[in-house]
């Protein structure tokens, strides 16, 4: 279980998240929707530990909680191929290349030898998703994973995400509310900035 208690985060004295409390179960696909710039990505960064809260706390059930994440800006290694980028989180070993390749195929990337500057925005996003799925984690965070994808590819990618995250918690920031309702178990909609309120799921 993931519990967020009275969480606040501000940048340059501007509140992005204010007194947010949120309880999430151990498993399930939770979609977070809301207008652009309302602080959804910041919330994922706080859960991932990339940002530190200004106030409040984030608690995980269990002593160790591993997190995997797909970033909005992909964050791929420029000098490594799509396959090598996915294999990076598997320890960069030859033995794990076939697993990395399988994950890429599942998200529709067949030309696994391309470098990031040879990939479209949508392909980069899918490589980033495959990389996130490569790691065994308790919580998977996806920041706008379907933003640059057509509906068919988004459906295929969502299916791959669901297949590899059974029994664990997935939190995905999704811009398209209708798509979020269709694929997620629960949808949280933040309609104001800063993000605030109390949510128990």
């Amino acid at each position, binding site marked *: 279980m993931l519990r967020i208690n009275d969480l606040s985060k501000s940048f340059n004295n501007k509140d992005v998240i204010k007194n947010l409390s949120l309880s999430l179960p151990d498993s399930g696909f939770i979609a977070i929707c809301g207008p652009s710039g309302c602080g959804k990505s910041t919330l994922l960064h706080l859960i*991932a*530990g*990339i940002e530190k809260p200004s106030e409040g706390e984030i608690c995980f059930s269990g002593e160790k909680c*591993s*997190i*995997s*994440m797909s*970033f909005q*800006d992909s*964050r791929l*290694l*420029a*000098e*490594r*191929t799509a*396959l*090598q980028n996915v*294999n*990076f*989180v598997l*320890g*960069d070993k*030859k033995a794990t*290349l076939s697993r990395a*390749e399988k994950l890429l195929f599942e998200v529709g990337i067949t030309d*696994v*030898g391309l*470098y990031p500057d040879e990939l479209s925005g949508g392909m980069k996003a899918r490589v980033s998703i495959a*990389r996130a799925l490569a*790691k065994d984690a308790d919580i998977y965070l996806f920041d706008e994973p379907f933003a640059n994808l057509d509906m068919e590819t988004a459906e295929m990618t969502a299916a791959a995400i669901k297949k590899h995250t059974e029994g664990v918690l997935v939190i995905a920031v999704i811009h398209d509310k209708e798509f979020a309702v269709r694929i997620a178990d629960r949808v949280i909609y933040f309609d104001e900035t800063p993000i605030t309120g109390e949510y128990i799921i």
Partner: protein
Amino acid sequence: MKIFKKVALPLSVALFWLVLWQAAAMILNNSLILPTPLETLKRLLELTADNEFRKFTALSILRIFIGILISIPVAWFTAALCSKSKVLSSLLSPAITIMKSTPVVSFILIAIFLVDRQIIPSLITFMMVYPVLFENIQEGINQTPDELLQMANTFGISWVLKVKRIYFPAIKPFFLSALSTSVGLAVKAGVAAEVVAYIPDSIGKKLSDAKSFMEPADLLAWTVVIIIISLLIEKAVRAMTKSSGRRSKHASDK
């Protein structure tokens, strides 16, 4: 057009300077002051035919290479340590400033009193190359993208893999460009050290002898040798820089 740019233009430039040299030598009309290009070439050919030439040249290059080769790991190691420790960085900062701003001849003269003569060229080469490499490696570390480090931390990537796949590619262009600019400097400083410290079996000693025995053709011939060595080393490093800049798709890694 391409042939003109690649061959004809450099040849014309070389010819222009050779004609200028020839004209100056003819005006002075004294080979003890300025020998003609032909006299210098003749002397150069005589020198290269000599077994001692190969020995002296090889030893001089070796001494310079030792200085460069030592400065590379030391620069990487200290730059990495300084990026982690501000205290160490502050401690090392004056030493780097001194190495950069002190005239090379002062270092050579001090070294004559302090260390064995044979190691002076390598030591001076090190002191010229190390600060340039150190500062550029540090700059590379500072320019390493935070986003990639955050990504690696989220995935719990080992520090070895972080160094290999994130830090090293970020530092590489800074390091190679610094290496490329500092090798020319290294050759000049290394030979200067050989001249001032009068190192036996060295190009520097030959230069010094040519000056003492009033043999300007020898002086110019050895200078041509130094220029050729410097250009060859710079070319080799540039080729290395270019080839390592290219991405390679390993068959096994796809």
